[in-house]
């Protein structure tokens, strides 16, 4: 088992370097970095020149990339434009967590900005994952047990809808319904005062002193969690149904029936357990989708997470923050795949041997 995990970790290393190369290449393709930095109107001319030297614009691209990756504090760089290296560099490189400093929030470390926002993203996605998995298991098992009956047909329609509904549109429809349409419809009947029934976005009430504990602001989570888990349920419930039907026709389940076990015991203890193995396989892609999808969902519900940070940074061309959020989210994605592979190896010993 340890050897399997070690091998998977080693495989992740070239992927990580590939990601940094792609991210750096895109940024380098944007042309002169100083022209990009000049988008910041508060930057003075001498600062701009110093930065140009510090970034090593005159170096060939691979050298620039290496300086970005591993830093330049171990080498002499030219700080006064005379063509000779005269001082130690002051950049630690992204491998040691130095992504430079944010242009927009001057001097802030992009990693700190991300760390501040990561909580909100994780909070939302864990909640959605819990809701999604629980509903999907119930729905998938019911659809398999009552195959071809009403619940099976409805769950099929539900899942096709879940695959084709754009999450942002569903989110907007919910906001419109609970925020505008329903209050307007109820107001003439003396119900409510026409104000939104659920918050129209945000993570907490706009008060001072930070966010209250999560149980005091559940109303903010209802709509985004509904939207995210809708897609999860749609995909997972059909997958589970198919797996259940496959295991239920296998020999050991027939044996369990033959020795007279009650029906629920066969379904839950024998079939569901094994049908669950592919669920761990699906966890990786699912988490990957959640990380990527967070940009859209967070924009729809103004949820202050990493996705929204990336969007704001991209709009204001805050390149260090953009690069940091892409690299960090890719690391999270690699870890998600790793986690799902390890879980699979735990549940399914055959995988370890490959």
């Amino acid at each position: 088992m340890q050897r399997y995990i070690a091998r998977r970790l080693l495989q992740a290393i070239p992927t990580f370097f590939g990601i940094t190369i792609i991210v750096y290449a895109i940024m380098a393709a944007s042309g002169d970095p100083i022209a990009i930095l000049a988008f910041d109107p508060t930057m003075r001319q001498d600062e701009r020149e110093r930065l140009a030297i510090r970034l090593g614009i005159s170096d060939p691209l691979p050298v620039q990339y290496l300086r970005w990756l591993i830093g330049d504090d171990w080498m002499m760089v030219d700080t006064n434009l005379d063509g000779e290296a005269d001082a130690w560099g002051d950049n630690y490189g992204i491998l040691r967590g130095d992504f430079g400093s944010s242009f927009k929030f001057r001097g802030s470390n992009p990693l700190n900005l991300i760390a501040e926002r990561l909580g909100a993203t994780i909070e939302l996605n864990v909640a959605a994952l819990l809701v999604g998995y629980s509903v999907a298991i119930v729905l998938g098992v019911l659809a398999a047990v009552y195959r071809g009956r009403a619940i099976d047909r409805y769950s099929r329609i539900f899942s096709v809808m879940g695959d084709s509904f754009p999450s942002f549109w569903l989110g907007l429809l919910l906001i419109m319904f609970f925020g505008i349409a329903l209050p307007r419809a109820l107001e003439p009947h003396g119900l409510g005062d026409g104000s939104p029934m659920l918050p129209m976005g945000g993570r907490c009430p706009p008060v001072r002193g930070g966010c209250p504990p999560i149980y005091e602001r559940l109303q903010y989570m209802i709509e985004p969690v509904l939207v995210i888990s809708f897609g999860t349920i749609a995909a997972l419930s059909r997958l589970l149904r198919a797996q259940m039907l496959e295991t239920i026709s296998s020999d050991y389940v027939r044996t369990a029936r033959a020795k007279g076990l009650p029906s629920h015991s066969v379904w839950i203890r024998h079939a569901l357990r094994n049908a669950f193995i592919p669920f761990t396989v699906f966890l990786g892609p699912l988490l990957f989708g959640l990380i990527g999808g967070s940009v859209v969902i967070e924009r729809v519900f103004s949820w202050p997470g990493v996705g929204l940070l990336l969007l704001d940074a991209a709009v204001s061309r805050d390149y260090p923050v953009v690069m940091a959020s892409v690299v960090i989210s890719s690391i999270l994605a690699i870890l998600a795949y790793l986690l799902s592979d390890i879980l699979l190896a735990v549940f399914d010993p055959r995988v370890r041997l490959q």
Partner: protein
Amino acid sequence: MHSGSAKTSDATAKLKHQPNEDLPPSQNMWRKAARRIRRDRSTLAAMTVVLVFALASLLAQFLSETVLQVDPEEIDLNNKYLPLFAEGHPLGADELGRDHLSRLLYGGRVSLGIAFFTAIFSISIGITVGVFAGFYSGIIDDFIMWIVTTLNSIPGLFLLITFNTVLSPTPATLVFILSFIGWTGVARLVRGETLSLKQSEYNIAARAIGASSLRIMFVHIVPNVFSLLIIVLAQAMSGLILIEAALSYIGFGIQPPIPSWGNMLSNSVDYMRRAQHLVFLPGLLITLTVFCFYLIGDGLRDAFDPKIAD
């Protein structure tokens, strides 16, 4: 006819068609699929809807100039937030009084066009890369699979946003960028098929009579994955329409004033209290189109599935 390659193809064709002398198997498979689709009502309905949308988008200019007699760019501040079924504007007008129906038609042209060309380009790249990776295993394969894994490990929207902060997105650059990151799935699929097909008897026979590697790859292997790729095309269309819409929605896709369904939806959010049909209609069109391509993909998969009996 007397050239070496013609002989090769004759010889391999005979080998390939050995099990079924009277009907070539590939043709048989396509005919069977067509027959199945003709009987599959939900797939036919979905195809009809997609065809209508595609035609309406292609004829966007004609329809708005001649039939509706409006200009999608014409601003008319007297007609702001016109509701549905207004005179001269069947689907109302937006916050600048521009005709909503004609903007939806032009938007469809952009959204469907981007998805279509991206699907074609990324599938072509995917076929080429995949067949090379599968055919020449070893270092070429390792290198290609490294790129595939790397591209697959960056959340797609994050990568697209990064790209689009650097390049300002027009429909053409968007097709380029989406194809650049979209080919990996097809490459994997074709690589897997190539790995198994290159060991098959007819390809060993082709090699024995001296067919070149390129010929084996593109004449003997690639046609065998075409039926798979048609299914992939339908699935890719639904995925790409969603991605383009999401990207335009968050402001990093097609930029106004060029309308796309995604940026029309995004634009209408600010006015959702005044005109809810502006939010509802673009989203409905995206959902319907994606839903139809989804059904078509499902239908094609069943139609080409050899395991399903007629």
